[in-house]
């Protein structure tokens, strides 16, 4: 049954220019497999995967390259068939050095031999379905890359009763999720059915922003005769509507407690891309080795929605989309608000790379920061209800204790505060550094406490 869910408006948020028109009407184009692929082993949150291949090995598509190195970790699979050129520390899309497997494709793109017929997943127990999600290397494809199987196994005592499928896609420029919703709405439905079977959730919400009417009608059509309580929630278009905690509030009017997880309010949020990846992993036993990337911006020859293999270098992606046009000023992996500016385009894309944004030099504005004028616009914009102005001043003064007391760890780094700041203060950068420093201090404190306990 489809009901239009109740609509609650989370606090804060901003209205940037969305710039989605250049790619939103373009169907997804599959990109040929490039010659070399650079597959990072730390694409997900948590421990980087442990490589199980070495230089010189021959692999085929879907063969594991690395195994999970802990509970919060994931499998990484070969995106195509070829030879392993190297397993070494390289620059990754996060801007950091990380373990990367370089594969030279042999051009045949052979897959693993199909061992079993497509599984009749409806008869399988939930536990086995989660195992299949883990084996498929599925991670959250909205950007954070949290291993999906961990979310699907809540610890004892936590019950997930609400499943939210995230199709908000509030980042400007990006249209990858939008195209999935239009072109693969049936697959999303299948994904929802699998998730529904695993979690036994009583209520399912599919949240889409109200500036995507075509996606809403496609989903309405696909979910017409869905058995179970389901609502397609048309949420207000604003940034960051698609952030996990904000979306939970929009759908259920429940707030995730400070420092808590969505499961603390009985909710689970999965991106639409993750839902389709789950279908591949469970029904076709096909691991996650490709995703849709929006390559866009005013410095790219031909903006496109590209279906590309993980590990495809940004250089190849740009070449496939008509090369660089004009005078590029910035290359961003992800959207303009939360994406990471790249220092090199010889970097492989990840399972979480939803977009590649090339902005011309004319679009890049470099500001120098000025003192806070106390206008409070950042406070109004903050979706987490923090006080970015005070936080930033405290972090600038290296007063991390006060920053911790002001709950800097609840910052979701959306950048709404910095977008609004008339003094052009680098608020998000301060928050990011502050969060890292506060966590570091916390670890030191715990280590010290542990030592004392041992000594006594």
């Amino acid at each position, binding site marked *: 049954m489809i009901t239009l869910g109740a609509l609650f408006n989370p606090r804060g948020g901003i209205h940037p220019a969305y710039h989605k028109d250049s790619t939103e009407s373009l169907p997804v184009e599959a990109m040929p497999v490039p010659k070399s692929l650079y597959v990072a082993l730390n694409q997900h949150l948590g421990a980087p995967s442990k490589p199980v291949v070495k230089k010189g090995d021959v692999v085929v598509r879907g063969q594991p390259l690395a195994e999970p190195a802990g509970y919060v970790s994931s499998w990484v699979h070969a995106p195509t068939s070829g030879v392993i050129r190297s397993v070494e520390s390289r*620059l990754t899309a*996060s*801007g*950091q*050095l990380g373990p990367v497997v370089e594969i030279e494709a042999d051009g045949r793109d052979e897959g693993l031999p199909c061992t079993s017929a497509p599984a009749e997943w409806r008869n399988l127990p939930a536990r086995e379905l989660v195992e299949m999600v883990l084996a498929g290397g599925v991670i959250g494809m909205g950007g954070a890359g949290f291993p999906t199987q961990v979310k699907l196994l809540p610890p004892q005592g936590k019950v997930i009763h609400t499943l939210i499928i995230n199709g908000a896609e509030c980042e400007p420029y990006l249209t990858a999720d939008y195209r999935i919703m239009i072109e693969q709405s049936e697959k999303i439905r299948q994904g929802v059915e699998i998730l529904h079977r695993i979690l036994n959730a009583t209520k399912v919400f599919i949240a889409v922003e109200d500036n995507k009417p075509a996606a809403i009608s496609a989903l309405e059509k696909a979910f017409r005769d869905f058995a179970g309580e389901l609502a397609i929630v048309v949420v207000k278009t604003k940034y960051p509507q698609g952030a996990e905690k904000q979306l939970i509030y929009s759908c259920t009017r429940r707030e995730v407690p400070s420092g808590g997880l969505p499961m603390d309010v009985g909710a689970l949020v999965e991106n639409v891309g993750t839902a389709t990846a789950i279908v591949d992993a469970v029904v076709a036993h096909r691991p996650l080795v490709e995703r849709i990337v929006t390559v866009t911006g005013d410095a790219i020859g031909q903006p496109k929605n590209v279906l590309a293999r993980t590990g495809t270098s940004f250089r190849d992606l740009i070449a496939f989309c008509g090369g660089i046009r004009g005078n590029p000023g910035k290359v961003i992996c992800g959207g303009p608000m939360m994406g*990471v*500016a790249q*220092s*090199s385009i010889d970097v492989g894309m990840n399972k979480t790379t939803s977009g590649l944004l090339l902005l011309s030099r004319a679009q890049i504005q*470099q500001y120098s920061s000025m003192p806070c004028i106390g206008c409070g616009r950042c406070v109004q914009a903050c979706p987490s209800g923090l006080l970015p102005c005070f936080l930033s001043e405290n972090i600038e003064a290296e007063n991390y204790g006060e920053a911790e007391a002001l709950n800097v760890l609840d910052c979701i780094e959306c950048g709404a505060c910095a977008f609004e700041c008339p003094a052009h203060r*680098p608020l998000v*950068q*301060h928050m*990011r*550094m502050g969060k*890292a*420093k506060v966590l570091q201090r916390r670890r030191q404190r715990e280590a010290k406490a542990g030592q004392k306990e041992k000594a006594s």
Partner: protein
Amino acid sequence: MELLIQTLIIGGTGLVCAAILAVAARFLSVHEDPRVEAVGNLLPGINCGTCGFAGCGEYARDIVLHGAPINLCKPGGSEIAAKIGASIGVQVPTDERQVAIVLCKGDDGAVKRGVDYNGLLDCSAAQQIGGNGKPCRYGCMGLASCARSCPVGAIEIRKGLAIVHPDLCISCAKCVSVCPRKLIRMIPESRSIHVLCSSMDRGPDVRKVCSVGCIACTLCAKAVNNQGISMKNNLAVVDYSVPLSDEGVIAKCPQHTLEKRVGGKGVCA
């Protein structure tokens, strides 16, 4: 008359209070070991906290009352440790003074910047996004986090590279923990031959980004027969636990990564 009464009242109150204080000072006084004050006067009094105590006074009390080691004061060094030893009659342990050194030589002349950096001027903030545009992933970013952490201003940023002045260094090692790339080491001050690079990249990759980086040619390690310099992860590493006297090895380095720098008081880098 009025004036006299007021004077008497104020003066009388003062006298009574003085009497109470005099009695209290006699009966409620706390006995303080005079050595504590003596030792406290010998300490520098800048309360840097590097001895591990909450300031110089606290450290002096711990030396006298609880027998804390007398050579913990880094700014004072052996000089003050000797004085304290003499004043309270304790043998001074002889440890060489440690000084900090930044193991990178890639200043703006040696390293070409690849991209513009417009983020925070702080090393750990830049490290979060992979650096500040200097292409070497291991080298000094020159954003002066160490210099800001130094309590005595012993670190200078020269052409985008941090340099420690060993004569000013007080061995507090605060900079060591601040550097996100772990480039700073504490070494005995008499060591003078250094490999000023921390890059673990292979030679060709180093050459692409830096003209003075270690290319792992192993010439220096061979010249000293692996005694004092050894190869580790594509990098020549000096073993500072043993003195390295053969200065001929410096000339062996084709990249001029090896350098002679004399530490110690009264010597400037």
